[in-house]
């Protein structure tokens, strides 16, 4: 499905938040690097796909009615073989059904966990005055406590995006810190540009958070995506 179809479908169902796999599909369409995800509905199905996906596997419950997944047992990480994966899915479905009996369950999202990198955040929001704007910052306390972020009004060119990176106070961390190698700034900048285009081309999207994005020496990957639509 194209982003247009995914968004339309969600709005038709009265949802203002895209499901996780839908959000991943939308960002993939714009060339934003992210894990390959599948949604399974049984342990059996999960077992058959596990080897293809690769390990370690992460599982997350997919439901329009559950926003805090781990509170209802809807998150499992670091599963290392087909048996663990199959058991994980079956257990998860059972636990969630008992803890959130009224929630509609779409299935279980399954993907290979990305290796740890430097966590950064790319976000976008539609402002009443400026239209789409994109934010960049480092993850964790840098955003939450220090609010060390930079913004640009879309459309954003790559040189603007690189300037956003340089503008944060903790920029030096991107350049390598305590023996860590520098991360690929071009890859992050390109992801910012793609996020800007995604917002420009989909006026129904109110905001997007790619949090975290794992930044590596050679690439970057959005390992979580949250897309909120405008209430119609």
């Amino acid at each position: 499905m194209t982003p247009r179809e995914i968004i339309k479908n969600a709005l038709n169902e009265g949802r203002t938040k895209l499901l996780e796999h839908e959000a991943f599909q939308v960002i993939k369409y714009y060339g934003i690097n992210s894990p390959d995800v599948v949604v399974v509905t049984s342990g059996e199905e999960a077992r058959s796909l596990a080897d293809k996906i690769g390990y370690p596997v992460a599982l997350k419950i997919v439901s329009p009615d559950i926003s805090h997944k781990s509170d209802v047992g809807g998150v499992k990480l670091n599963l290392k073989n087909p048996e663990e994966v199959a058991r994980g899915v079956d257990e998860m479905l059972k636990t969630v059904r008992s803890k959130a009996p009224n929630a509609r369950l779409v299935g279980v999202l399954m993907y290979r966990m990305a290796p740890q990198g430097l966590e950064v955040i790319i976000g976008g929001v539609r402002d009443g005055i400026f239209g789409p704007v994109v934010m960049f910052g480092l993850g964790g306390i840098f955003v939450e406590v220090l609010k060390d972020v930079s913004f640009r009004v879309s459309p954003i060119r790559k040189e603007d995006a690189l300037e956003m990176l340089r503008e944060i106070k903790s920029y030096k961390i991107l350049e390598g810190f305590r023996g860590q190698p520098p991360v690929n700034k071009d890859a992050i900048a390109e992801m910012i540009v793609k996020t800007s285009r995604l917002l420009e081309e989909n006026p129904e999207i109110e905001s997007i958070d790619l949090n975290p994005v794992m930044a590596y020496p050679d690439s970057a990957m959005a390992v979580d995506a949250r897309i909120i639509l405008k209430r119609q």
Partner: protein
Amino acid sequence: MIDKFFNPGSVAIIGASDKPGKVGRVILENFLKKFNGRIYPVNPNYDEIMGLKCYKSVSELPEAPDLAVVVIPAPGVPAVLEELGAKGTRAVIIISGGFRETNTPQGEMLEKQVKEIAGKYGIRVIGPNCIGIFDNWSGVDTFFLPEEKMKRPPKGHVGFISQSGAFASAIIDWMAYNNIGVSRAVSYGNKVDVDDVDLLRFFIEDEKTRIVLMYLEGLKTSRGKEFIKAARELVKVKPVVIYKAGKTSRGSMAAASHTAALAGDYSLYKSAIKQAGLIEAESFDEIMDIAKVFLTQPLMNGNRVYVVTDAGGVGVMLTDALATQGFEMPRTPPDLREELRSILPAHCIVENPIDLTGDTDDERYMKVLEKILPRSDVDAVVVVALPQVPGIKGSLADYLIEAKSKYGKPIIAVAIGGEEARKISMKLESGGIPVFESPERAAKALKALYTYSMIRRRCD
């Protein structure tokens, strides 16, 4: 196009009055004093005001005035606007308050009517609830503050856009007091139609304006992108200094998403200001300091600054202030060091900041500056002249004024002190060398010049 506001052949003042102190009287007086076009007072209660024939209504006017200034109470404004539209007037300044700003249903409704009528006839409207235009070149002056309360500055080249009427009149008064020449100032109030974007565009072509100052509280909904676009065009030809008021974040959107929570109003404006190539001033002092530099100084080629001082302490303060602003203060290169050594007494410091010490006189400054200014590795010079030292008599000022045009690079000065400092400052400033009372202010103003120089370079 909004040119007619600034250069009308005729103007009607609706609500003109002969009662001293009334807005309709002050504005009429303003026009009588300086405006060369035809003036039509309109007020049903008079046959004549201040020697001019007064018309009972807009429809009676002998022509469609190019510009109309409306000062009658708000409830009567829509009807007058309708008449003006039918008559053929396409530029209207509505001074009257009592519209949306009152937060009443009636005020909102009146403003909506104004908008509709303006749209129907294609009338461009400035206001309502504003003080309108002060145009030094055409004599259009709707600032209803009488001359004895608000001095008018001399004709000049500073353009001014202000969301606040009170701030606009205060700054105009201040510029008059400091003898800074103004081209045109506009305060647009509720901006039912003409807004920041239109005014930025107007200033692109306005030959009388060389720099634009701007006081902004907030843009109209969805105007952000157009604002950035218009500003980008304008800064290609002249610098724009902006003060953004209202810096606290709105916070109420917090819940929606991480990004929305962090996207406080001001952080977005700050990014937009940067993207547009505007120079942001963070205080009133800074607006004026930056304006002074832009009005008098050529652009910088790079960020290498030399300091020549007669006070070691101020030299160090300046070094700190310049470094804080990101300037490079190069070490004096060996060839220059040797040259300076050969002309200076042994106790002087030839390392940048170059310290001529307290026994210097005007001549020592001139000899040193003659070595520094022509060099291609010098992008700007800050001269500290504490006038308390006995050797400073005044010829340094004449020299600096001449050197600025001779060498075509920025020269600014720092003078700290009382009567003597004031004297030397006035002389320098009248010759186009801006003088600052503190190293920090000098460094910040120079930084604005550097930032704009780089913006211009990127545009070319």
